[in-house]
């Protein structure tokens, strides 16, 4: 590992000023950064830990809204009764990351800021319509999660901007996440699919579908969602929604699987994810 200067600021403003410098990296849980530094794919000159800044951890409720601090451990997200009940897809996605040892270190903010299209919490946050609160020395702003990513590993975050919190305003009556993978644990998603639905008297009043690892950024399958809204969740309709979601995907072939396989599986898994979300609604 290359040497670096290490900082442990106690305020966001100080962290933001340090992070705005050239070749600076933020340290949240470290499960991506430390491994990247060992591999020399990350060679920051300064590392700024967020661990001593108060107010960045914990899950709180505010009316219907659930707020998750960016430094909240993945294991806490996974085990939160509020998240499990109202944003099941997010709790399930969190439980799919790495091992318990890794989930005890990794944070939800790190999982998102790393901007991997395959991040396991991202589909759940997409279908929760999460707002991403961002702070810098200049002030604060909020970005809808579906506008955060610009490419693999890339976000709209400007130098010095730090994710502080995720606000999940819209509880779904039923949601589910499926991770397509080979190993039970310690695997990366070939694809990840989350669905959230609200039902009223057998009619889908709202549907949200989030897809991970099938495009340069995580995406919502809006055409598929529009097909579902206002209709009863018949097998034929869910079938059509799967096809529409697959059409929205623009997957690549890589060492884990081919683009063709990914597109086929988006179809299949969107249908299955919707079936489970509807059953839970």
């Amino acid at each position, binding site marked *: 590992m*290359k040497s670096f*200067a290490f900082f442990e600021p106690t305020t966001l403003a100080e962290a933001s000023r340090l992070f705005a410098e050239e070749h600076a990296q933020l340290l949240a849980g*470290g499960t991506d950064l430390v491994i990247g*530094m060992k591999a020399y794919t990350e060679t920051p000159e300064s590392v700024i830990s967020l661990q001593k800044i108060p107010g960045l951890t914990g899950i709180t409720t505010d009316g219907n809204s659930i707020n998750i601090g960016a430094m909240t451990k993945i*294991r806490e997200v996974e085990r939160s009764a509020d998240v499990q009940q109202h944003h099941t897809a997010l709790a399930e996605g969190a439980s799919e990351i790495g*091992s318990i*040892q890794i989930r*005890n270190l990794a944070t939800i903010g790190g999982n998102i800021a790393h901007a991997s299209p395959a991040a396991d919490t991202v589909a759940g946050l997409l279908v929760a319509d999460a707002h991403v609160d961002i702070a810098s020395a200049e002030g604060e702003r909020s970005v809808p999660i579906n506008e955060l990513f610009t490419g693999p590993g890339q976000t709209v975050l400007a130098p010095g901007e730090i994710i502080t919190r995720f606000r999940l305003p819209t509880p779904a009556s039923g949601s589910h996440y499926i991770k397509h993978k080979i*190993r039970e644990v310690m695997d990366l998603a070939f694809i990840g699919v989350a669905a959230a639905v609200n039902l009223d008297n057998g009619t889908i009043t709202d549907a949200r579908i989030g897809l991970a690892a099938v495009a340069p950024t995580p995406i919502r399958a809006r055409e598929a969602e529009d097909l579902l809204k206002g209709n009863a969740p018949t097998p034929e309709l869910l079938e059509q929604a799967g096809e529409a979601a697959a059409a929205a995907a623009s997957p690549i072939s890589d060492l884990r699987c081919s683009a063709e396989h990914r597109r086929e599986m988006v179809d299949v898994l969107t249908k299955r994810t919707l079936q489970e979300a509807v059953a839970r609604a």
Partner: protein
Amino acid sequence: MAKHPVTLTVNGDEHDLLIEPRKTLLAVLRDTIGMTGTKEGCSTGDCGACTVIVDGKAVTSCMVLGVTASGKEITTIEGLASDGELHPVQQAFINTGGYQCGFCTPGFIMASKALIDENPDRTEEEFRHALGGNICRCTGYTKILEAVLKAAEKIRTTA
């Protein structure tokens, strides 16, 4: 780069150290303090051999910068036995032969201890899944799982 003063509490003993920020907690434990019970396997968080317990939570110490562990309570395999008595998890691994070459054993024991502390009532399937972050290259998983279940039962019945 400047070394940082840290205080690590390892198995109840305080260690005041000056360490480079790039040193992982694993490296500090093994190379600086000289406690080599915690093993380095893959160095990428995949194998679990370096598992230690920090503030009650099992973590892969190869992914933790030592400077960030300052002020925290760290338990390693060396700290499990007390008053000459092995911890029930350690004893169960011996009784059932839950090890072959032994390299993964400290990590498995620390991960298992944390799991049992959290909830000893897990089913076999739940323990198997929860130990998915620990790899045994000798593939001695059957005996390892048997040891963990026996230890959990013992801790349940004596608690």
